[in-house]
C-alpha cells in the first residue's frame, strides 16, 4: 500500500518541501492551519486536564481532592485555556485558514506572512500562559473580575492577562486576513451571492474579531497596569468602578461567544446540504443571519451583569435586545432543518455531528433565552444552570462543529479517509457523553447549586456523579477521533479529490491540494450548493 502510494504520489502542500524549517517558516495557509491544529490540540488537552480535575473534585460533596484554592485555579485555567487558546482559534484558525482561500479560488490568504506571524503570536502567548500555569497559575475565574483580579488575588494575574492580551492580536490578524481575502482575492465570477456560507460566516466572525478584540485587549492592559502601577480605574476603594470593567470585558466577551459559534455554523452550512443532497434552504437568509448575529451580538453584553448593579432600565433594554439575537440564530436552525426536509439524508460521520449540533445548539440557545429574561436570571445567575447553558453552546455547538468539520475536510487535509464506522461511533459517544455531563447541570443549577465552589450539599451529589460519569464518556469520545485520525494518516484509504461529491471549490482540486491550491485559477459560473446537479457519492449510496 505504502509503495503504491509513493509511486502515484503527486506534489502537494504536504510533500512539496520537507524539514522543520519548511514548516516553521512556511507562508502556506494550509501548513499554517496544521501548525494551529497541533497547538490548539495541545491546549485542548491541557484545558481538558483541568476539566477532569474539576469533575473529579465534584464527584463527592466534600472538598477532598483539591483544596479550595487549587479548585479556583483549576476552573480558571480550564476556562481561559478553552476559551482563548482553543475555542476562539479552533475553527477559524484551522479550518478557516485551510479552506477560505480554497473556497474562493485563491492561491493563499491576502497576507501570508501576517498569517504566519499570527501563529507565532499565538505560540508566544501560549508559552507565556504555560509559564503562568507552571509557576502557580491564576485563580480569578476566566472573567478576571475586578477588584479581585486587580487588588486581592495573589496569583499570576499579570502573566495570564498579558498572555490573553497577546493572543488577542493573533485573532485580530487572522480576522484581518480573512476579511481582506474575502474582499480582494475571490476568483473571477465568484460574486458575493455565490460565496459558500462557510465564507460568509467567517466574514461575520472576522468582523467581531476585528472590532471586539481590541476592547478586551485594552481592558486587560488596564487591569495589568492596575496591578503593577497601582492605578485605581477599576478599584472601588479609590473611586474606580468595577462594573465598568464588566462592561468593557463583556463588550468583547459576549461577542466572543459568536466568534466561537459562528464558525461552527459555517461548518454546518457546508455539511448539511452535502449530506442531504440539497441546496441550502434560504441561502440569503442564512448568509445575512450571520452578519445579523455579528451585529446584534454587540448590543446584548450587559445581560451578563443583571445582578452586578447596573441600572434597572439598562437591564430591561439589554434583556430585550438579547432576545433579538435569537432571531437570526433561529433562522439558521430552521433553514438547516428545512434543508434536510425531503433531502436524501445520509448519516455519515460529519452529518451525525451536524445533527448533534442542531439539537445541542437549540437547547443551548433556548436556555440562553431563560437567562436573558431578567427575573429568571436573578434566580439562576452564577449557578450550574449558566454553566450548562454555555457548555451546550460552546461544547455542544462549537466543538461539535469543529469535530464535524475536521471529519468532513479530513480527506482534503490529509489525503486519507478516516474509518467511517469508528467515526460514527465516536460521534454517538460524544453526543451521549456530552448530554450526560451537562444536562444534569441544568437541573442542579436550577435547584440552586452555585458555580465555582469546590464543595456542595450532599443532596446535589447524584447530579454531580452523573455529570462526572458523562465527562468520562465524553473524554473517550474526544480521544477516539485523535486515535483513528492519526491512524488513518498511515493506514486510511487514499482519499479521492471529492469523496462526498460536494460542490465547494475546495473539492475541485487534488486531495491533498497542491501548494498553490489550484492548477489554474478557477472561474466560477455556478451558485453554491448546486447539489441537484451533482452525482451521488459512491460510498454514501452504498451505505444508505
Amino acid at each position: 500500500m505504502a509503495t503504491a502510494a509513493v509511486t502515484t504520489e503527486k506534489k502537494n502542500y504536504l510533500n512539496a518541501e520537507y524539514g522543520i524549517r519548511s514548516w516553521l517558516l512556511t507562508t502556506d495557509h494550509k501548513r499554517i492551519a496544521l501548525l494551529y491544529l497541533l497547538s490548539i490540540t495541545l491546549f485542548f488537552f491541557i484545558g481538558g486536564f483541568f476539566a477532569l480535575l474539576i469533575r473529579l473534585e465534584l464527584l463527592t460533596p466534600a472538598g477532598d481532592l483539591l483544596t479550595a484554592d487549587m479548585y479556583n485555579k483549576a476552573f480558571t485555567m480550564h476556562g481561559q485555556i478553552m476559551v482563548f487558546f482553543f475555542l476562539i482559534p479552533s475553527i477559524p484558525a484551522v479550518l478557516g485558514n485551510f479552506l477560505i482561500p480554497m473556497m474562493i479560488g485563491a492561491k493563499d490568504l491576502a497576507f501570508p506572512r501576517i498569517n504566519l506571524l499570527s501563529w507565532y503570536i499565538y505560540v508566544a502567548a501560549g508559552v507565556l500562559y504555560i509559564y503562568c500555569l507552571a509557576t502557580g497559575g491564576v485563580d480569578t475565574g476566566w472573567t478576571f473580575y475586578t477588584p479581585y483580579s486587580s487588588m486581592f488575588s495573589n496569583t499570576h494575574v499579570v502573566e495570564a492577562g498579558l498572555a490573553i492580551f497577546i493572543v488577542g492580536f493573533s485573532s485580530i490578524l487572522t480576522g484581518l486576513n480573512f476579511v481582506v481575502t474575502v474582499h480582494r482575492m475571490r476568483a473571477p465570477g465568484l460574486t458575493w451571492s455565490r460565496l459558500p456560507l462557510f465564507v460568509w460566516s467567517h466574514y461575520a466572525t472576522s468582523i467581531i474579531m476585528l472590532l471586539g478584540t481590541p476592547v478586551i485587549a485594552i481592558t486587560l492592559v488596564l487591569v495589568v497596569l492596575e496591578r503593577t502601577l497601582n492605578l485605581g480605574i477599576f478599584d472601588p476603594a479609590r473611586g474606580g468602578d468595577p462594573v465598568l470593567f464588566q462592561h468593557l470585558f463583556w463588550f468583547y466577551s459576549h461577542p466572543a461567544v459568536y466568534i466561537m459559534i459562528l464558525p461552527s455554523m459555517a461548518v454546518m452550512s457546508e455539511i448539511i446540504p452535502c449530506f442531504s443532497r440539497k441546496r441550502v434552504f434560504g441561502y440569503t437568509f442564512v448568509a445575512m443571519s450571520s452578519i445579523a448575529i455579528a451585529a446584534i451580538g454587540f448590543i446584548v453584553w450587559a445581560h451578563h451583569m443583571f445582578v452586578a448593579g447596573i441600572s434597572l432600565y439598562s437591564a430591561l433594554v439589554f434583556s430585550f435586545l438579547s432576545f433579538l439575537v435569537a432571531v437570526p440564530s433561529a433562522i439558521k436552525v430552521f433553514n438547516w432543518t428545512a434543508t434536510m426536509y425531503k433531502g436524501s439524508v445520509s448519516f455519515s460521520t460529519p452529518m451525525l455531528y451536524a445533527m448533534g449540533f442542531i439539537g445541542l445548539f437549540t437547547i443551548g440557545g433556548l436556555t440562553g433565552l431563560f437567562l436573558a429574561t431578567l427575573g429568571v436570571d436573578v434566580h439562576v445567575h452564577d449557578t450550574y444552570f449558566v454553566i450548562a447553558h454555555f457548555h451546550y453552546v460552546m461544547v455542544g455547538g462549537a466543538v461539535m462543529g469543529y469535530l464535524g468539520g475536521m471529519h468532513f475536510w479530513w480527506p482534503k487535509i490529509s489525503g486519507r479517509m478516516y474509518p467511517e464506522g469508528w467515526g460514527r461511533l465516536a460521534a454517538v459517544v460524544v453526543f451521549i457523553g456530552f448530554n450526560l455531563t451537562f444536562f444534569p447541570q441544568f437541573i442542579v443549577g436550577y435547584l440552586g447549586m452555585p458555580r465555582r465552589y469546590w464543595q456542595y450539599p450532599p443532596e446535589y451529589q447524584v447530579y454531580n456523579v452523573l455529570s462526572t460519569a458523562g465527562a468520562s464518556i465524553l473524554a473517550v469520545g474526544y480521544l477516539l477521533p485523535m486515535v483513528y485520525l492519526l491512524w488513518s494518516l498511515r493506514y486510511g484509504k487514499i482519499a479521492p479529490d471529492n469523496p462526498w461529491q460536494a460542490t465547494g471549490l475546495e473539492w475541485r482540486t487534488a486531495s491533498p491540494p497542491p501548494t498553490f491550491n489550484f492548477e489554474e485559477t478557477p472561474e466560477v459560473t455556478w451558485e453554491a450548493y448546486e447539489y441537484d446537479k451533482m452525482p451521488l457519492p459512491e460510498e454514501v449510496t452504498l451505505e444508505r
Partner: protein
Amino acid sequence: MSDRAGIGETPLAVEHEERPELRHHFADVEQQRNAATLGMWWFLGTEIMFFGGMFCAYLVYRRWYFPEFAASSRSLDLIVGTLNTAVLICSSLTVAMSVRAAQLGRRTLQVKLLLATIFFGLVFLGVKAYEWNNKYKEHHIPTFSFSANDLIKENQKLFGLDQLQNDPAKLQERKAEIQRRSQIFFSLYFALTGMHAIHMVIGVGLFGVITWMAYKGRFTPEYHTPLEIAGLYWHFVDIVWIYLFPLLYLIDRRPGA
C-alpha cells in the same frame, strides 16, 4: 522568504510585466495594493475600538467626577498642549506631501519630507516627555506620591470646599475624595497619552524604515504602497490626538468657573 513568483502563474498574471514587489499569490500589483490598503483600513477600525475602551472609561468618570476632572484638566499646560497639537498637524502635512512626492516620482523631496515627519514626531514625543516630567514635579503621577493639594488650593469654589469650612470632618472627607478622584483623571491621562505615545514611537520606527526604503528608491509613482499605508497609520494617530487634546486639556477652561 523565498520568492515563489512564477511557480503558480495564472492566466490572469500573464499580461502583467515582471514586478519585483508583486508577491506570488496576487494576480497583479493593483490587487496587491488594494489588499494592503484595505487591510490597513480594517486595522485602523480595530485601533478605533482599542482607544474606544479607554474613551469609554474616560467618559464614565468624567460624568461622575466632573469638578475633579475639570480642575485636573486645568492643571495641564494649555499652551504647550496646543503647540504640540500643531506639531503633530505639521507632521501629517509632511506625510501627505511625501505620498504626493512619491506619486510624482520625486525621490529627494520624498526623503526630505519623510525626515521632516520623523523630526516632528520626535518633537512631539519630546514635548510629551517634558509635560510628563512636569506632572512628576507637580506630584501628579498616580500612586507615586500623588498629591491633589495644589488642585484643592486653587479650586476651593469648584470643589465646594468653601461651604465646608465649618465642618472639619466633612472637609477632610471631601479632600480625600478629591485626592482619589483626581487620581482617576491622571490614571486615564497617562493611560491615554501613554498609549498614544506608544503608537507614536511605533510610527516613528515605521517611518524610519519607510525613509530608508524611499532613500533606496523603492517607491515609484506606480508602487508606493508601504509609504501609503504607513501614512494612513500616521494620520490615524494624529486623529486620536485631535480628540485627546480637547478631551484632556479643555474639559473646563472657562474663567471663574
